């Protein structure tokens, strides 16, 4: 049994928001550390690797099929403020009758420029262009398109560290988000005989940093494990906005509550994936990720920008 049209559309939406946007960054802004989020992106360029990101879900097919996604990506700073991420994912869909289809998605590259890092307000802004290269994946099995997608995207992150002392318990909160406009290089899919919509691809996270609570607000002398946790809720959405003739303008996506454990050289994240509607999936899925901080693992090697990383002497620290 081949994947139905609904299944393919759901997968395309899911892939657009999940496995095509997790360029990663080890992100310090003032006292704030923004962890690498699982289904959206954090607002920094960095030298990092996610190996792997694994997701399990039941897609919006009737009856629902089971889907596994395994993704790998590698982020490298070219200069201090400009970085490139290369991402690849593999998907398997198992139908209720046991039929299995699998294949690679298109290769994706993300070019990002750090527009702003404002330390005192824990504010970071990043501009990027996500390029999903057509015909580089398993187009025959329907997991990759024969055309490319271009998604100019703005990312932001804001920590609440500048809140007044009277609400100091809220300071460990932070929000991150991204808004992108996805444009396909073809407007009509002659294989499926459907228009290819332009889409708004957007998402956000709300996170509470236990490391921040301990070092900036109050040391509760909790067991060390808890001081490394960042509880988080992510939302990842896609909305068709044009060239969608004959199809509903339905927003699809998931709400992902979970937690990230932040370590010395890596982090581990685990989230539930709750579809926001029937078109987004059937039941709760799970996503997990092991994420490596290359800049900490290899601070004088691959963890440096290719250009300009070691030429500048350490700055004299001033307040």
């Amino acid at each position: 049994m081949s994947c139905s049209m609904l299944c393919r559309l759901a997968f395309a939406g899911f892939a657009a928001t999940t496995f095509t946007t997790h360029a990663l960054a080890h992100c310090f802004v003032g006292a704030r550390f923004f962890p690498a989020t699982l289904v959206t992106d954090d607002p920094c360029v960095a030298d990092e690797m996610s190996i792997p990101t694994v997701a399990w879900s039941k897609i919006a097919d009737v009856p629902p099929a089971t889907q596994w996604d395994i993704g790998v990506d590698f982020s490298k700073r070219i200069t201090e403020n400009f970085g490139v991420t290369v991402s690849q994912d593999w998907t398997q869909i198992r139908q209720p009758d046991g039929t299995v289809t699998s294949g690679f998605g298109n290769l994706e590259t993300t070019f990002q420029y750090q527009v702003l890092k404002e330390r005192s307000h824990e504010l970071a802004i990043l501009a990027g262009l996500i390029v999903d290269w057509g015909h580089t994946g398993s187009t025959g099995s329907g997991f990759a398109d024969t055309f490319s997608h271009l998604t100019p995207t703005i990312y932001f992150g804001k920590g609440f560290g500048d809140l007044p002392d009277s609400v100091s318990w809220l300071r460990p909160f932070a929000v991150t988000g991204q808004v992108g406009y996805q444009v396909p290089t073809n407007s009509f899919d002659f294989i499926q005989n459907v228009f290819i919509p332009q889409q708004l691809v957007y998402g956000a996270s709300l996170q509470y940093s236990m490391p921040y609570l301990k070092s900036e607000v109050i040391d509760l002398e909790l067991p060390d494990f808890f001081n490394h946790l960042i509880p988080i809720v992510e939302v990842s959405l896609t909305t068709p906005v044009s060239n969608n003739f004959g199809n509903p303008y339905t927003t699809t996506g998931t709400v992902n509550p979970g937690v990230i454990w932040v370590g010395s050289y890596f982090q581990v994240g685990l989230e539930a994936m709750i579809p926001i509607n029937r078109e987004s999936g059937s039941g709760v899925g799970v996503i997990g990720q092991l994420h490596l901080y290359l800049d900490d693992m290899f601070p004088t090697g691959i963890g440096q920008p290719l250009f300009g990383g070691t030429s500048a002497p350490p700055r004299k620290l001033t307040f």
Partner: protein
Amino acid sequence: MRILISAVPSLLAALTATAAWAHAFLDHAEPRVGSTTATAPRELVLHYTQNLEPAFSSVEVSDANGARVDLGKPTISASTMRVGLKALPPGTYRVRWQVLSVDTHTTEGSFTFHVKQ
């Protein structure tokens, strides 16, 4: 893919075997972050998760009016930074620190502690 999956536990084991953080995070402080002390401390001690570069690490302590109450240049040994304090009357004091770890990563932070009335 099988190779990848089998490599993950080994990678995790290798990573968790490393004791120190690469960025220098504040592990704990004396007086503790956000704490209230019954008596005025004569010294502030900051313990980090990574050894520090003394030339590029600093700390200052100020009172509620912003006046410095530390005794100046801190002493740094390995992952610990100390600075003497003036006689502190009851009140709230803010600590601001910036450090450079030996692997060249910079981190910073601030917190308050209170001296009881």
